[in-house]
């Protein structure tokens, strides 16, 4: 049988076995993480800018920063993360069965995933939309020209269904060639098996920047055919842990909004008189960590580790990275984007 099927099967068996474990009680994920001294983080198998390991095995990316910030907030050490690379099919089973504590793997939040998988969506860390990439020499300028064409796609993603919906709505009769692995789908596109490759626009940029022999030979078509709010998911039933994952992300957004950066966090903590900043960084008598089951400095450490959301964005997918994605929807709410943190108070 196929290797991944075996893995899925193993996870299913693990889920069966998990019944012998103790029943849920408050904050058990955080307890388990503290006892283990490590966060187990499900990430992409390799998508530059979001989660990819370098030649030394060091992971980096926007999603990886979520894991690092969480480790800094809960364990005071950003390095105490075990990364579990998961493909699109393994990811939910891995989270359901407890193989990972959090799934930070550019996963789209949808109704059916939120309602039927026993999982909870936390908060969006990247607003995306599905697009198409074609070779420049194909002379295709619009997704509407893909009539009757083959399009490479990774299986088990919202992408596959969006493609079908789009093809149907526009009577395009697109023929999908579906691959289980991201690398296989990319390869098939680059060898010319398919006219186009489709996934989230950020993924297209990442693939074009990192995998294409010559990025200039490929263009991303203007149409975005779906909304793809991406973000970390956690298991349902542990509200304390859900809150931590959510608020660490909000905290990093709030930090950007109030100008707290990796570089000035210590100084701000010592000198800032802004009550909001004091609350964020645990200065004076403020202790926002207590309510989450964490210590006073949880967010200050997280900011020191990854920088605020804007810094993380810039470093991983923005102008300072090969992807060079525009901030667009992912800008702060007061700068024309959708990133809006609930107030930390």
């Amino acid at each position, binding site marked *: 049988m196929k290797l991944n099927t075996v893995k899925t099967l193993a996870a299913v068996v693990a889920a069966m076995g998990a019944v012998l474990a103790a029943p849920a009680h408050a904050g058990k994920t955080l307890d388990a993480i503290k006892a283990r001294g490590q966060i187990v983080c499900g990430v992409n198998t390799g998508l530059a800018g979001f989660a990819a390991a370098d030649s030394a095995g060091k992971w980096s990316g926007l999603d990886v920063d979520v894991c690092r910030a969480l480790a800094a907030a809960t364990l005071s050490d950003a390095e105490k993360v075990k990364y579990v690379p998961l493909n699109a099919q393994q990811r939910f089973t891995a989270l359901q069965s407890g193989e990972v504590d959090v799934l930070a793997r550019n996963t789209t939040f949808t109704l059916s995933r939120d309602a039927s998988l026993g999982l909870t969506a936390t908060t969006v860390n990247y607003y995306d939309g599905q697009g198409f990439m074609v070779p420049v020499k194909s002379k295709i300028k619009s997704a509407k020209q893909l009539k009757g*064409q083959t399009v490479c796609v990774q299986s088990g993603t919202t992408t596959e269904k969006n493609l079908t919906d789009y093809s149907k709505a526009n009577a395009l009769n697109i023929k999908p060639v579906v691959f289980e692995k991201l690398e296989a789908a990319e390869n098939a596109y680059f060898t010319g098996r398919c006219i186009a490759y489709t996934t989230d626009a950020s993924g297209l940029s990442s693939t074009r920047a990192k995998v294409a022999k010559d990025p200039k030979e490929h263009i991303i078509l203007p149409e975005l055919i779906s909304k793809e709010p991406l973000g970390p998911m956690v298991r349902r039933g542990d509200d304390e842990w859900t809150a931590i994952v959510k608020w660490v992300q909000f905290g990093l957004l709030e930090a950007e909004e109030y100008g707290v950066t990796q570089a000035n966090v210590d100084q701000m903590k010592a000198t800032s008189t802004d009550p909001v900043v004091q609350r964020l960084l645990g200065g004076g008598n403020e202790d926002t960590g207590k309510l989450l089951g964490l210590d006073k400095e949880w967010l200050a450490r997280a900011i020191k580790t990854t920088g605020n959301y804007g810094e993380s964005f810039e470093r991983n997918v923005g102008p300072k990275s090969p992807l060079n994605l525009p901030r667009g929807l992912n800008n702060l709410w007061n700068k024309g984007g959708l990133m809006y943190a609930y107030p930390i108070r």
Partner: protein
Amino acid sequence: MTSTSPPKKKSWSWRSQAFRGLIYQLIAIVLIGLAVWFLAHNTLTNMKARGIQSGFDFLLGPAGFDIGESLYAFDSAQPYWQAFLVGLTNTLRIAVMGIVLTTILGTLIGVGRFSRNALVRGVCYAYVEFFRNVPVLLQLLMWYLLFTEGLPDSLDAWVIGPMFLSKGGLSFPIPVWASGHLWGLLGLLLGAVFAVLYRKWAYQQFEKTGVLKSMFWVPLGLLLATGVLGWLIGGAPSTFNAPIKGEFAIENGGSLTPEFLAVLVGLTIYTAAFVAEVVRSGIQSVARGQSEAASALGLNPSQSMRLVMLPQALRVIIPPMTNQFLNLTKNSSLAVAIGYPDVVSIANTSLNQTGRAVECIAIVMLVYLTTSLSTSLLMNWYNTRSAIKER
């Protein structure tokens, strides 16, 4: 002399071995049943506790995804179970075609290892050793790479007569169905009946006179002649739906995708190496005297192989051959690695769209179990038929 039989044991006594055996078996069955129930019950309870939905009801909902290739039209609005059916037919298509091609290729190579020509022998030997010892997944990936990397883009496709070969696969003309074709089919059917009758008659002639008549070419000629005759009577419809180069790709006509070709070629070539070994060992199991006796009767080597050696070897060949057929069918699940939409691929997609991991995997297991069991049932029936008939 009087013979005293031992006193009869009561059959419902603990001292009776048969009774104890029965009890032990009952206990074993109950224990296994309990274990299965425990696993199933716990899985369900556990999934419920975690808020994971379960059940097979999702099979009736619309699938919502397209499938790249299928023998018949599939629309994304059709339910999941029909998507599974498409996957199943795609798997069976590979399995059936693969088994037929593998048997032919494997037998030729197996027989080739007894050739008097050293080159043929050597090539067959090398073939077996090479393809048997490289993992099948690697071979599939290699063929796929060869087909997608080695072939030209669809716009510069190689033209082979009316066919196009490119990265988009093999496009070929397909006849447009017309009622006249029905006459052609009728003709073929009639020809088949004639051919069978002719062969019967030829056998009788052979047994009467000892003169061997053509047993292959004449029946084939009969078959084709009546087929063509029927087609002519039907008005000789000959419109073809030929592939043409479109703006961005090749359009119309029938086509085989590179995924299908890679899986078929890869599995056939891989499994044929094993089949060749099965055939070789089967032939070697026939006593040497048999082939000597055959030459003494004046049969030439090919006749001796076909009429004397192979029928006897078949008895040894069939059981391991069944295994190879099962392997081929099961290995077709690797097709998902190169994007062929077989039943595993469909199940993977469904699993992800619905989150019903246990159910989807159960379906895949059931599919392979059913195909494997029916294959071995069929082969066992054939095995009994070709066993020595002691009269």
